[in-house]
């Protein structure tokens, strides 16, 4: 975890909400909402990490701190969006998926992943334009798109991996970046809905049961908990699907 901000003194905590109109005016006139972002980004930079994202030899460094976590999410969303875009664009899409409801689900999921990708692209650009990773080059083996079974198996991997990635990344966001935690929460449950639907398309009733696939054991464990993975675990599983080398070595680890 990157450094937390100083705790608020108790008396300030008690008073902070008591004068909403004054506070609101203060915020309006100081433009502090924007400045707050600067606090988020700078207090979460640990120390001497380079600000600029580095690409060398087709390696993509996701960076550090909260921006690194945003880049990490952006990388995964790029891969998901590329995969579903390719699936829906297949000339034999209607033949592979003769059921219109299934085609609608896959098309919806494509749209959601594109929405996620474009959101991160704009949000990271606005917050830290110098640190955003570039567009990645997907590496989708032809076999992944060859049949209904292989498409759904690949989709299941991506969705369960996405859920596990967000579940494991939440705690890596700094206290100052709590707004990012909120955004991650808004996306991860949609990924879980996708995961459930894809799993049910493979075998109805496996929405939250059966083998995890991305890890040993079941997708939901004996405590009723879904999978959570570290960025290093996720990147190792995602790497085969992207041509560039994903470097998460500067990401927060706690």
């Amino acid at each position, binding site marked *: 975890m990157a450094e937390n*901000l*100083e*705790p*608020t003194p108790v008396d300030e905590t008690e008073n*902070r909400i008591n004068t*909403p109109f004054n506070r609101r005016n203060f*915020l309006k006139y100081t*433009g*502090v*909402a*924007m*400045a*707050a*972002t*600067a*606090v988020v*980004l700078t*207090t979460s930079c640990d120390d001497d990490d380079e600000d600029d994202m580095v690409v060398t030899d087709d390696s993509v460094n996701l960076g550090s701190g909260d921006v690194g976590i945003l880049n990490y999410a952006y990388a995964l969303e790029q891969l998901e969006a590329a995969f579903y875009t390719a699936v829906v664009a297949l000339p034999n899409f209607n033949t592979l998926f003769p059921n219109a409801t299934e085609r609608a689900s896959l098309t*919806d999921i*494509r*749209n*959601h992943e594109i*929405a996620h990708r*474009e*959101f991160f692209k704009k*949000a990271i650009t*606005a*917050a*830290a334009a110098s640190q955003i990773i570039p567009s990645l080059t997907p590496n989708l083996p032809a076999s992944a798109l060859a049949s209904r079974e292989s498409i759904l198996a690949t989709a299941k991997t991506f969705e369960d991996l996405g859920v596990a990635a*967000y*579940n494991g990344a*939440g705690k890596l966001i700094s*206290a100052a970046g*709590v*707004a990012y*935690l*909120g*955004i991650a*929460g*808004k*996306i*991860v*449950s*949609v*990924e*879980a*809905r*996708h995961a*459930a*639907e894809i799993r049910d398309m493979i075998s109805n*009733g496996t*929405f*939250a*049961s059966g083998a995890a696939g991305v890890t040993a054991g079941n997708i*939901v464990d004996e*405590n*009723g*908990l*879904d*999978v959570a993975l570290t960025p290093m675990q996720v990147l190792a599983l995602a790497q085969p699907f992207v041509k560039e080398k994903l470097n998460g070595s500067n990401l927060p680890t706690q």
Partner: protein
Amino acid sequence: MNIFNIIKEIEKVDPEVYDRLDPRRAVFKHFAGFGKKLAAAAVPLAFGSVLNKAYGQSTSSIREVLEYALALENLEYYFYKQAAATNLFPTAAAKTAFETIRDHEEDHVAFLRSAITSLNSGAPTTYTQASFDYSAGGLLSDTFTNYGTMLAVAQAFEDTGVRAYKGAAPSLISNDAVLQAALQIHSVEARHAAHLRRMRRDAATGGVASNKPWITLKDRGGLPAAFQGIYDGEEVTTQAGVPITGTFGSVTITAEAASEAFDEPLTMAQVLAIVDPFIK
């Protein structure tokens, strides 16, 4: 037990609960954008801390959040326990799905109870079947006798649960272990919600053919109007100041798709208002 009793219980461990539920906090939601990067040196760190505490982040105690989650999980568990015991299911798969979800909710109850116990702040609250009223004070006359109603109530509980955990997560940012566990429960609830929505979409009788596994705008999917609060707010198409709709390459993201792509949180107060009719 009613909403005020719940808050009274919470007040025992968190005397400031009424302040935390103050709706005026919502004014800070609008400042949660990703603004342009300005010179951070211009912002006194202490003020940043005040702002961080105040905008969009509830400061509920860990115990309070866990008790809140425990109440919701018990509400779900006793619902599925009763539902899975009915003979309303049209297929074996439908019954199995309810049993799977019931078992997960039971696991969540046990997990949360042990998490609360580990805080050493007193024993967790114990609930029984008698704690809950699944007719919602008479609003629903056939919860366990009409398959369509039973599915609808299940969807309502799961979609509410997803929004509740989402809203509570920022309160847990100081405790990595509890935050991660809450996220791991949150995504399971979302899987449940998706499957129940699928069951309602595909049900031969008592279903809603237009249902999807995700939430479109603020559509309540054929649920009674009294349940609209579960979906209000889901229709937003802007996130952190970024418009989600638009055309990207050859794909147009409509308001419907943009709203589906992001699930929205609910505050503790909003959730307690939704579930209040179900809690004695």
